[in-house]
């Protein structure tokens, strides 16, 4: 906690609240593992549960140099992940806003790109759509696949424009991903309300 960077500025009250929550989840241990997330009852019904939990342990989100998955995370890592969901501040300038937006989209990109190769392939996209629609038991798997295919084609047409009949679209890179999200104002949408952004980085 002493190594608090301006990357994750949250107020001391919120830190306290999150710390309490962390202790609850970890059963008073210093770190949490994937299994600890099973104790949250409401999360069970979430269709993309797997991806969310995975995101907490993804080293790319934890700003660590290496790649792959961590086995366990401590409170600082927990806060780092939570800080991706802080709300927009009114007095941000253009550059800060752009960085803010990119950060959030990078988090999302990592969630879509499960094999960490920097591209969202068709298979990964299919996987996302299948998970999203998994709550509906009557939907055939085929429909989910065709929806994903259609969405991939849309993405191709946005990112690459008109493709010749022989061209193959390999996967959505991060830049393409940014283009796809252009219409949705993620800065205002992707935040959890109780996290305000005071620039004081209080140490516990």
């Amino acid at each position, binding site marked *: 906690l002493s190594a608090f960077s301006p990357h994750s500025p949250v107020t001391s009250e919120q830190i306290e*609240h*999150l710390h309490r*929550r962390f202790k*609850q989840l970890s059963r008073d241990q210093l770190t949490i593992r994937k299994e600890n*997330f099973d104790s*949250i009852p*409401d*999360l069970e*019904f*979430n*269709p*993309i*549960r797997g991806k*969310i939990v995975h995101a907490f342990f993804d080293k790319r989100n934890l700003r660590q140099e290496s790649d792959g998955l961590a086995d366990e995370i401590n409170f600082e890592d927990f806060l780092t992940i*939570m800080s991706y*969901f802080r*709300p*927009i501040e*009114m007095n941000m300038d253009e550059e800060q806003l752009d960085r803010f937006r990119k950060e959030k989209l990078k988090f*999302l990109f990592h*969630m879509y790109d499960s094999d960490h190769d920097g591209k969202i392939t*068709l298979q990964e996209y299919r996987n996302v*759509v299948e998970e*999203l*629609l998994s*709550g*509906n038991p*009557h*939907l055939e798997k*085929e*429909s989910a696949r*065709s*929806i994903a*295919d*259609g*969405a*991939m*084609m*849309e*993405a*191709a*047409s*946005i990112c690459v424009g*008109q*493709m010749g*009949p022989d061209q*193959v*679209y390999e996967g959505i890179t991060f830049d393409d991903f940014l283009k*796809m*999200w252009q*219409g*949705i104002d*993620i800065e*205002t*949408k*992707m935040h*959890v*309300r*109780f996290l*305000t952004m005071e620039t004081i980085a209080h140490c516990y």
Partner: protein
Amino acid sequence: LDYQHVQVPFEITLWIMLASLAKIGFHLYNKLPSVVPESCLLIFVGLIMGGIIYGLNDRSPPVMDTDIFFLYLLPPIVLDAGYFMPSRPFFENIGTILLYAVVGTIWNVFGIGFSLYGICQVKAFRLQDVSLLHNLLFGSLIAAVDPVAVLAVFEEIHVNEKLHILVFGESLLNDAVTVVLYKLFRSFCEMPTIKSVDVFAGVGKFFVVGLGGVLVGLSFGFTAAFTTRFTKDIRVIEPLFVFLYSYLSYLTAEMFHLSGIVAIIACAMGMKRYVEANISLKSHTTVKYFMKMWSSVSDTLIFIFLGVSTIGENHEWNWPYICFTVIFCLVWRALGVLVLTFFVNRFHVNTITGKDQFIIAYGGLRGAICFSLVFLLPDFHRKKLFIAATTVVILFTVFIQGMTIRPLVDLLAVKRKRESAPTVGEQIHIRFLDHLLAGIEDISGHWGQYYWKDKLEYFNSKYLQKILLREYDQPKSSIVLLYEKLERKHAIELAETGQLGRAPSHPSLLNDRAVIMDKKLEDDALNPHVLDNMQEILARNLYRTRRTGPAYSRHTLPGETEHVEHAKGILILRHKSL
């Protein structure tokens, strides 16, 4: 000549005919609607009509009867607004909307009321006999933003969705506050003494009126959804149920002195999802068309009557009072918006930029509701003064603010509506984000917006859908619905332009999901060359959907293309992986 026999329906029909012909007239001359909003032109026509009637009869023309307005002219417009309200932005911004509607309106009422009372104290204006209570009563009817006027003006300027829903939502929901305050002050006028108990009763009444309206609306809405579950064999009267139940909810709420507008909105929003799943496609189109038609006619009639009623001897022109009313309306609205937005931004309920704030304040138009309420006032010796002031405020807001808002929007470069077609990818992303945020809220132990939304969805899928939907076994996610809609649309486009030249029922290319084909395609022989081409055509043309119109518009139906009638069936195509 038996005129007496047919007089009433004949005159009503003539008025409606006049309104519709006026509308045709405006649209024939293309340039006009872009400079002058339609509402202004209609009031102008009304003024001319009023002048003619006055000149011919030499007495005041018929003033719009309050009952006719509230019982017949207002409900179709509000129903139309509620049924086509985009529910996602509405609920995302509901906190802000409620804040503006409730706190903002109260602020305006008391602000305008007290300041006008202050003006009345000035001896020079000869207004001393207008008591504080009368001023507050006047304030309560003039402070509320009018949904009809806002709709008429904002529809033509296409601002961004959030701004539109904020002003529009506020204008609809402030009815609850207006009803309570108006009735409260009116009853105070008649009571000899006012105790603090009465004031508290008034506050309590507000909650009853608002929540009661919502409850009445929802119960009628769910009953309507339940009824449509059984209408499979009598499709022809399905649209009727939508209208009957909504109108009943309005009338029932009015009967119990609750807010009719809130009731009808709750009814429309509550029943929409289930009714649309239950009724046939043709009934659906009928409902849409009739709603638009009725609300259009109502809207036109209201503005014309406003114009007609302005002429006559109903007014007492005390210019200082009138001018100060206009000034105070503007000033208090601006202040109210500024203060409330400050709190909204500070507590991160929403983020509203300065430009948006200006448009919200400037877009606070008054309209026919104020007009009708002022005629409902008990007859006391200063009533005509209030009528005159109301008329001037309405004319000012509709003409001056209505005409200048479009150039101002352009000048300030307010963020406009995004003119792009819906894509399946976007829908996927939005749903993904929904679930992600719900998950994060669960993890952090915070019961926020997404948590409750999730819970509501769960409740809906477990209980409500089972009761209210006819074919429960196939509830569809919004992603699937949008995908099917786009596929259908695209297939129809392709079929029409003749690009699907041959019947592609070759089993190796398409899976068993490809179903009903257009009759004319079946007759042609199979051509393998065309089959190969088809794959390529689909790959290149798929999802180049064309621009759809604005999501909500008085003049067009949402998501309509012109030529839908051609293809006889639904073509569901599969396309191979990339």
